[in-house]
């Protein structure tokens, strides 16, 4: 893990990890047995991680969800979709790299897969606009979903965005309309749609591609109507209250499952997806496969009706008990 991105509550773990690293380095140059010491340290690390990761606050989860080493949409696509062919453009204005998408095979089945990509290094972050989609991105999503509908391909989306891009051009080109239309397209699909919040599910920018039959979240992902910082500055009139806001907003996967807003949680390996991306990607793959199987009994109109029923119940009397 790159030392630049150490979360506060992970510091003791990182210190132990660097000790192991140091021991290994020493044992390379001098001849003495470190196995015992390493095992002891590793046990300590596991214990520390366990205690840190079993009682994460909503704010800590927000930090993990935004961790730059977490697997991103492109990683999930690379790991889960074979023969992936990226498709580009909204056929009206531009190609928005903040939303990557295309066609490929998921465990043998042709699918349309897409998601917001935040980028890794500075250059790719700039290219992907930090995962903040512009109207063109949503219009590309609409185009791909409509194509999926025509060809009977399931739609898989990966949600990872701080939110839709707030810019002059985005507003001028109809950011609101593009999001609205994208949600509408999700809702009317006659193919199975499965969305996973893999990191940050930021408000309208997230729901635009997440009005799905099954909505899944990774264990430490967050999904919210507004960022904790934004909420704190509006309601507490002080951005410093982000910890309180994160708690109050109920943004964790566990909260959202109890509010019946999401269907499934995919456990992350101990220490989070940023420590074990490959395992996380595989685990999500299994959940998506199960979801697809469970939806396979539904016909075209039933799939749409399923989505409609699910989302029109959100907020009904007696929903939350």
């Amino acid at each position, binding site marked *: 893990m790159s030392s630049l991105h150490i979360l506060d509550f992970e510091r003791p773990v990182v210190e132990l990890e660097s000790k192991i690293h140091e021991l290994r380095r020493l044992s390379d140059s001098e001849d003495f047995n470190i196995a015992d010491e390493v095992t002891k340290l590793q046990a300590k690390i596991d214990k520390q991680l366990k205690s840190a990761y079993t009682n994460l606050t909503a704010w800590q989860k927000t930090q993990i969800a935004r961790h730059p080493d977490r697997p991103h949409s492109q990683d999930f696509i690379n790991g889960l979709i074979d023969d992936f062919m990226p498709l580009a453009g909204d056929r009206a204005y531009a190609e928005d790299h903040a939303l990557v998408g295309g066609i490929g095979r998921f465990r043998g089945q042709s699918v349309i897969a897409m998601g917001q990509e935040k980028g890794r290094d500075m250059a790719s972050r700039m290219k992907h606009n930090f995962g903040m989609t512009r109207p063109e991105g949503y219009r590309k999503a609409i185009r791909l979903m409509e194509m999926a509908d025509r060809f009977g391909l399931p739609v898989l989306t990966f949600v990872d965005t701080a939110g839709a891009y707030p810019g*002059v051009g985005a*507003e001028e080109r109809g950011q609101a309309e593009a999001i609205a239309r994208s949600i509408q397209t999700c809702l009317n699909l006659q193919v199975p749609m499965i969305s996973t919040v893999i990191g940050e599910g930021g408000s309208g920018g997230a729901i635009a591609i997440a009005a799905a039959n099954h909505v899944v979240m990774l264990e430490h992902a967050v999904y919210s109507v507004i960022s904790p910082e934004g909420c704190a500055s509006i309601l507490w009139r002080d951005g410093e209250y982000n910890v309180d806001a994160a708690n109050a907003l109920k943004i964790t996967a566990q909260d959202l499952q109890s*509010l019946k807003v999401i269907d499934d949680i995919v456990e992350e390996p101990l220490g989070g997806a940023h420590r074990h991306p490959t395992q996380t990607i595989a685990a999500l793959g299994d959940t998506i496969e199960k979801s697809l199987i469970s939806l396979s009994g539904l016909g075209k109109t039933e799939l749409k009706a399923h989505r*409609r029923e699910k*989302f029109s119940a959100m907020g009904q009397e007696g929903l939350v008990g």
Partner: protein
Amino acid sequence: MNWLTSYVRPKISALVNRKDMPDNLWQKCGSCSQMIYQKELELNLNVCPHCDHHLRMPITARLEMLFDGGEYQCIELPQPAVDPLKFKDKKKYTDRLKEYQAKTSEKDAIKVAHGKIDGRMVVVAAFNFAFMGGSMGMAVGEGILAAAKLAVVQEAPLVTIPASGGARMQEGILSLMQMPRSIIAVDLVREAGLPYIVILTDPTTGGVTASFAMLGDIALAEPGAIIGFAGARVIKETIREELPEGFQRSEYLWDHGMVDMVVPRKQLKKKLGDLLDLLMSKKPKASVLQLADKSEPAELPPITKA
């Protein structure tokens, strides 16, 4: 603070400030800063008589203005789950709700009314900006859905009039879920082959704009209304540049192809009636048919050569 100020004075002011004394007899126009006599403002549909600036309009006045003879019925809306998040910032959400309910005598930020506009049954879902900034939570979503269902049952067109700062944060993710929910409502009307018209008023922003409000078959906007997704302040902080003149105003949106018409409030009822007539009464009226059936053409103007 002594007993005189904390006890006696409120008692006295309670005697003096009787309800029949309206709070503000005068209002200042937000655009030209002129003082406007409240009665005059109301008679002028909350449009500044000096500069034509469209001030925000109380929801009941708006409904009265739209329906024939000011007559309409509001439907009772189902009560959704209240505060499932047990949300608390500096204040409890439930206290905040009670406060606004007391202040506005309304249950939440939406009213669903039905009645006649130009003699035709229409269902209107109107936002009350005075109730927590017209923010969209579960009750509002419920209202839009109820309005859509009523429109379908009555085979009536649906008109929504948003006036909202966006999603209601205090309902967390459940407020976000009202975006797909309100879109389902719109789709019910669409699938029934009925017109859905939006009248965008000041302000329409955030999650409200990014859902049902931007999906009208026809979108009308009141002059000068702020309509957008992201708040101007957020955009300014992101791009660190001055925003263009008139940014996110109705006229700017019209210029960028986002709304069909910018309609002054005084013409709104007529425009809406005319549009609905064109959409709903597609065949020519009987009197027009008769004319067309005449074998002899009506008098034609003489053709003259220049």
